């Protein structure tokens, strides 16, 4: 077999994802044309809707916060060679942890409640991912199928709890009581307002900062600790891991628990930062956006932040766009999301051979012809 040359870093990490993204946008543009609108005008409206005014930027970053969490969740599992499709369910169950802390321990001071809520979001979300991890590691059941099933199990469990247990007394809509203010994460416009800077209100809240901290922590964990190293070895080559004295089963369970905990943090943004109560389906497909974000971001925290911003802009800009071009409904964003997953994930090998032919450096040790 011919030794494959390696692509220069900027091609692998920059050009290739951009090429995949361009292909996804090209197909999306075609769909816009089929719907009878001008794609360039749509892009302009979308950009204005996402970045054109203060409130828009706030919403873009607010969505991006959730996507950073779910993107990191998918990425950590990916590094261990696992495909965690269960981010949706893990985030949903994480919401239960946050809500329970808010409802039953909300009498404690803010400085105690918030760390407790973060802990519980991680514990609940992590637990919901740990079980599929355990089943894969110890019982050999496939993580993809189990996490899909766990999404449905989470939906059933949460519907039951919301309809029968957590529903606010005297209410018809299955929603929990409003959480006490000690369990709220302050929104950034309030914080800036306190500093004397006036900005338009948006649900952007402190969890955005926490998401950035999580990016740093994940980077430290994956690339700077021996646990992260062990996790990556299992992901790259399980046999080598066993040979090196690493237990794949333990790493798989660890990776899934961390992955689920990160997904659970979506609840901080949505429940504690924005809605201040637990609602039906508050995750709204954000767990699945995480797949696209992780694939686009090459499973690296920096890439994930950029990809999360892109999808935040698509979500926010997309809803503004649907006001100006009623033919382009918000669902178009979901189409783009699917196309990005298709081109950046499933079809990632489509452009690679051509780029390799163009840019490949001879592999080390190979004579230059």
């Amino acid at each position, binding site marked *: *077999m011919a030794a494959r040359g390696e692509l220069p870093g900027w091609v692998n990490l920059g050009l290739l994802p951009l090429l995949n993204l361009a292909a996804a946008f090209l197909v999306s543009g075609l*769909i816009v044309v089929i*719907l*009878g609108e001008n794609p360039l005008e749509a892009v302009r409206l979308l950009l204005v809707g996402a970045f054109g005014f203060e409130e828009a930027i706030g919403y873009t970053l607010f969505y991006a916060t959730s996507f950073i969490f779910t993107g990191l969740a998918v990425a950590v599992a990916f590094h261990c060679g696992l*495909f965690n*499709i269960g981010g949706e369910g893990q985030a949903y169950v994480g919401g239960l942890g946050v809500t329970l802390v808010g409802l039953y321990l909300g009498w404690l001071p803010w400085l105690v409640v918030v760390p407790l809520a973060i802990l519980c979001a991680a514990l609940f979300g992590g637990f919901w991912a740990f079980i599929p991890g355990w*089943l894969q590691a110890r*019982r*050999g*059941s*496939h993580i*993809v*199928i*189990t996490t*899909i*099933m*766990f999404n*449905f*199990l989470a939906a*059933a*469990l949460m*519907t*039951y709890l919301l*309809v*029968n247990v957590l529903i606010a007394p005297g209410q018809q809509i299955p929603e929990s009581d409003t959480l006490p203010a000690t369990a709220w994460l302050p929104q950034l416009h309030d914080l800036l307002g306190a500093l004397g800077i006036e900005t338009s209100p948006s649900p952007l809240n402190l969890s955005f900062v926490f998401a950035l901290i999580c990016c740093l922590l994940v980077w430290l964990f994956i690339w700077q600790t021996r646990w992260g190293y062990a996790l990556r070895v299992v992901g790259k080559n399980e046999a080598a891991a066993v040979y090196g004295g690493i237990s794949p089963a333990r790493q798989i369970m660890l990776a899934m628990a961390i992955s689920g905990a990160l997904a659970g943090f979506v609840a901080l943004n949505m429940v504690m930062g924005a809605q201040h109560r637990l609602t039906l389906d508050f995750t709204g497909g954000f767990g*699945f956006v995480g*797949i*696209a974000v992780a*694939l686009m971001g090459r499973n690296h925290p920096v890439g994930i932040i950029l990809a999360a911003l892109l999808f935040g802009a698509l979500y926010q800009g997309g809803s503004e766009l649907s006001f100006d071009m009623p*033919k*382009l*409904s918000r*669902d*178009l*964003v*979901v*189409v*783009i*999301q*699917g*196309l990005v*997953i*298709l081109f950046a*994930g*499933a*079809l*990632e*090998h*489509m452009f690679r051979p051509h780029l390799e032919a163009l840019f490949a450096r001879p592999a080390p040790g190979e004579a230059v012809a």
Partner: protein
Amino acid sequence: MDALFLQILLLADSTVRLATPLVLAALAGLFAERSGVVDIGLEGKMLGAAFAAAATAAVTGSAWLGLGAGIVSAVFLALVHGFACITHRGNQVVSGMALNIMVAGLGPTLAEAWFQQGGRTPLLGDDARFEPIVLPFANELRNVPILGPIYFELISNHNILVYVTVAAVPVVAWVVYRTRFGLRLRAVGENPSAVDTAGISVTWMRYKALLVTGLLCGIAGTYLSIAHNASFIRDMTAGKGYLALAALIFGKWRPVPAMLACLLFAFTDAVQVRLQGTPLPLVGTVPTQAIQALPYLLTVLLLAGFVGRAIAPKAIGEPYVKER
């Protein structure tokens, strides 16, 4: 006594109606997965077909053209899946997920742009749908004790796609176990290099399997939007593709057991709709969500080896790289 008997018959009848799309989708998944291609995109293919069928039937007024459009769109999606996973050796789960998400957005987008009814297609008239067929003598035999009601309620009065599904199960079993295509299909999912050595193209075999997958998913989606219901609505598959996948695993990738699993899942669904909070003897009121969760829980337990053992085709999920 008579009332109870009728209740049981009606329950069986709605089980059959609910099981039909599941059985079709599970058989569709059987072809893909037996050939070694993981297909979590059953959901998306069904949803795509449901939209194409409903939109076409709404415009042309013909259920048959709707069926054609449904099949064409599901086959197209299956080919995209094949292009990504077979030709470009992409991750099969990622590809399936991508198609599911794309279709979930595309259906409502196109429906809204073309029909402006909030992401759904217009309600179809009776002649644009597949209508129930009254089998010969159903009305005349209705009053024959026991057998008459069974014939009238359970066997007669379904639309043609239900009968197609009933016929599809033995046909698929025959194709998979008794034909040359079936032998090669199973071989390519277990040991593709052996098939390659025998001079058969692994790529073409897997594409053929995906074509059948598309065909069956197309019928399943069409059933949902223009036979069982009268329009396409957002997310109308509601996890049925994943449920069919669970049934396929539950049936250990074999046609008849997969059908039985579909019937079981459909039965729990039918019971759940009928119970709606009525207390049962011995156990009291069972929450509807518990019954809804049952199929997923059973699948998890089965996969974990707590109830039986499900062993997947050996080469599943692995792109085939031909030796040079």
